[in-house]
């Protein structure tokens, strides 16, 4: 398959096989970031680190990618503890709106010039704390929250109502608050309030031994357990300069695609169910269950937990397990074709899904939307192809990209990706030669840092880690694709009727836990 030519970041300092590094003075950050964007880079993540104990103040990192380079560019700048401010770029790059405000909430670094500097990650009623600062103990018991409640923006006009929904919802979904402003049935404005499931995960990583931290990574977002576990292990392996065995790469690829399969087929069912086509959902949820049982057969865990580890996988597969997996997927292939025949035969379902919840490609680009939702709105991005990992460089596959950006298209991307995933798994199964599935990872020296990237079923997942003393984690930054994509929901629902909100929300199917951490 065509790989990126690695020319965009020529001349920069190559830190390892996947990263290029640069340091920039605080005064030059904004102009440099904007110049990189002008030159075709995408700002994938912004995050901070407290290095005051090492005498380096705070560091803020900017992670870029470029369509002509398979490496990530990490630019960092140092901020003195005496003047805890960094220049905001959110006005020019709306994609980092929340990420900059997170830094503000968690580190107490002021995002200077941010167009909307209100709290995002800590709710308004929390006391003035900055939990990711090193001098904040994780087990601090905070008093009952008696601060001011969040004030939603008023939406005024004749006949305009506000509908507050959540955090406890009618369906079995995660908690978050939606404030709809409606004029009649159409939604004219949606305000989101997330971080109800904030459980201090990034803080919990700190001081955790690496082997144990893998289990925490698996709990960032349950539906992406294997992806988050893998991206964490990739970061560790890159920091340790360890190459995992070919068999491990291939096994990981199979499991990553199985995770995509069970989530995508479940989503297809949930989407058609939300417009009243429950027969489709009955078959889809049965097929999802089928893949979960394949997961269990291979890993002992329906959510693929407890198998990935730094250096490869903790358990190898017997030939009979592999054979059963192959047979099961053949059956899934024919069952999935039947399911799509049933779904496609329902014109009324299609009628409800088309032109519903449109995310225009321009908006998707400005907001930096990733993954399934991005590819349904023209964003031709896929970490598997753009920054190959595991065994994705061994095989050819297609990345479906559409321009329509409606619910139907987001479902169509999933359908295409299911067929691709089946082809990928079959190709890898055929190449799954015997060998070791794990290599020992030597104890990590302190102060080793690395980035891991995986295309989870939802989109781009990044973990950046720095090691501390005694093989422990000093800092782990987690970027789930949901964090990028929530603002897309706000855009997509505008002008749609309230009863269509559930299906629009489901077509994005974002992780609250992955966002809130």
């Amino acid at each position, binding site marked *: 398959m065509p790989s990126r030519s690695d020319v965009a970041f020529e001349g920069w300092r190559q830190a390892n096989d996947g990263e290029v590094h640069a340091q920039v003075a605080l005064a030059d950050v904004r102009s440099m970031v904007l110049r990189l964007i002008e030159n075709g880079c995408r700002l994938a993540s912004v995050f901070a680190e407290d290095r005051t104990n090492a005498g380096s103040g705070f560091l803020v990192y900017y992670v870029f990618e470029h369509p002509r380079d398979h490496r990530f560019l990490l630019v960092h700048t140092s901020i003195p503890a005496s003047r805890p401010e960094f220049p905001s770029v959110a006005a020019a790059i709306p994609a980092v709106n929340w990420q900059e405000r997170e830094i503000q909430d968690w580190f107490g670094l002021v995002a200077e010039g941010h167009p909307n500097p209100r709290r995002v990650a800590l*709710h308004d009623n*929390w006391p003035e*704390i900055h*939990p990711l600062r090193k001098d*904040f103990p994780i*087990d*601090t018991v*905070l008093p009952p*929250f008696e601060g001011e409640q969040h004030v939603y923006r008023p939406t005024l006009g004749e006949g305009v109502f506000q509908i507050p929904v959540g*955090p*406890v919802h*009618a*369906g*079995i*979904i*995660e*908690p978050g608050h939606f404030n709809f402003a409606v004029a009649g049935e159409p939604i004219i404005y949606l305000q989101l309030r997330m*971080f*109800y*499931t*904030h*459980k*201090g*995960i990034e*803080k*919990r990583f700190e001081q955790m031994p690496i082997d*144990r931290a893998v*289990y*925490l990574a698996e*709990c*960032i*977002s*349950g*539906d992406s*357990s294997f992806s988050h576990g893998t991206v964490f292990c990739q970061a560790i392996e890159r920091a340790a300069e360890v190459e995992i065995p070919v068999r491990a790469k291939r096994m990981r690829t199979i499991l990553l695609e199985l995770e995509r399969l069970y989530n995508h087929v479940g989503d297809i069912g949930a989407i058609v169910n939300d417009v009243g086509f429950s*027969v489709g959902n*009955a*078959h889809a*949820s*049965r097929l*999802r*269950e089928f893949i*979960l049982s394949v997961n*269990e*057969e*291979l*890993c*002992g*865990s*329906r*959510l693929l*937990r*407890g198998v990935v580890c730094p250096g490869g996988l*903790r358990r190898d597969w017997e030939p009979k*397990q592999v054979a059963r997996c192959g047979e099961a997927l053949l059956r899934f292939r024919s069952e999935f074709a*039947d399911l799509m025949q*049933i779904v496609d*035969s329902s014109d009324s379902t299609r009628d409800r899904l088309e032109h519903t919840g449109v995310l225009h490609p321009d908006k998707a680009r400005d907001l930096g939307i990733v993954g399934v939702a991005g590819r349904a709105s023209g964003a031709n991005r896929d970490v598997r192809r753009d920054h190959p990992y595991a065994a994705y460089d061994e095989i050819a596959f297609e990345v479906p990209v559409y321009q329509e950006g409606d619910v139907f298209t987001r479902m169509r991307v999933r359908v295409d990706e299911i067929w691709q995933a089946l082809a990928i798994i079959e190709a890898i199964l055929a190449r799954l030669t015997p060998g070791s599935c794990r290599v020992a990872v030597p104890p990590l020296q302190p102060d080793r840092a690395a980035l891991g990237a995986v295309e989870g079923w939802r989109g781009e997942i990044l973990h950046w880690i720095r090691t501390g003393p005694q093989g422990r984690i000093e800092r782990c930054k987690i970027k789930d694709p949901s964090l990028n994509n929530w603002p897309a929901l706000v855009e997509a629902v505008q002008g749609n009727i309230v009863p269509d909100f559930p299906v629009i929300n489901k077509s994005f199917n974002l*992780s609250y*836990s992955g966002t809130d951490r």
Partner: protein
Amino acid sequence: MFHIFKKAAQTRLVTIGYPHAPAVISENYRGAPHFEFSGWRDARPAAEACPTGAITVEATGSRRKVTIDYGLCIYCGQCAEADLSGSVRMTLDFELAARKRGDLIVIAEYALEPDGSQGELAVLRTGTLEGGDALEPLARRLQNRIHDVLGRSLAIREVDAGSCNGCEIEIVALNNPVYDLERLGIHLVASPRHADMLLVTGPVTRNMEIALLKTYRATPEPKMVVAVGACGISGGMFGRNYATVGGVNAVIPVDVFIPGCPPRPHALLHGILLALGRMEQRSLVG
């Protein structure tokens, strides 16, 4: 329409027999660990390997106290891997739900040998921690009455109080044609006002504390609460920190605890039926 009928005829019945028939699960399933307490020479490697602190060892004079808390266990299998003596093995067990938090805790005390290994097993206790039976006789009678009222048909409101969404995946699965919760007269409903039982997941984040309490108050009496998963029982991987309170019973009273990370759908069924007092009837039905 033709395709729908054709597929229905081809698919036939997919619903499992559990709880009336034994669960059919993969022999590769990693369920709860089993500990061979007598003859266990050294619990330290297993304790060191455990990522959640479900296994702890404590030296008290000439004795070693080993505590196993199934309410913290995530069934990862690290203990069985680390213990080379074969005293720890992973099983297919998933029916671990308990009415008392203490029933999930096993304590073994050993005489300590000079070389640091464990000698004779002196004491083996279970269900003795945290006050034993949480229910007074009167409350127990009341609960039996609740079983009579709710036992045959039950409405459940699920509350995610900060989970990773792993438990939600398995709870949603209860409604699929394979587990088909409704065949047992149990329904997942949209409002706590319609509910007899709250099924609560997550370590209970500080941001969900008030919402959980309000949901509990909105549920009419008589009501039951089931805490789901390692997080719901004890905070799990997240424990208790500035953003979590570390378990559902820190906020509202819990009737049944269902261990697992997440508990598989069979285990959820088992726990819900246990709360209803219907597990005891299983042998009669089956």
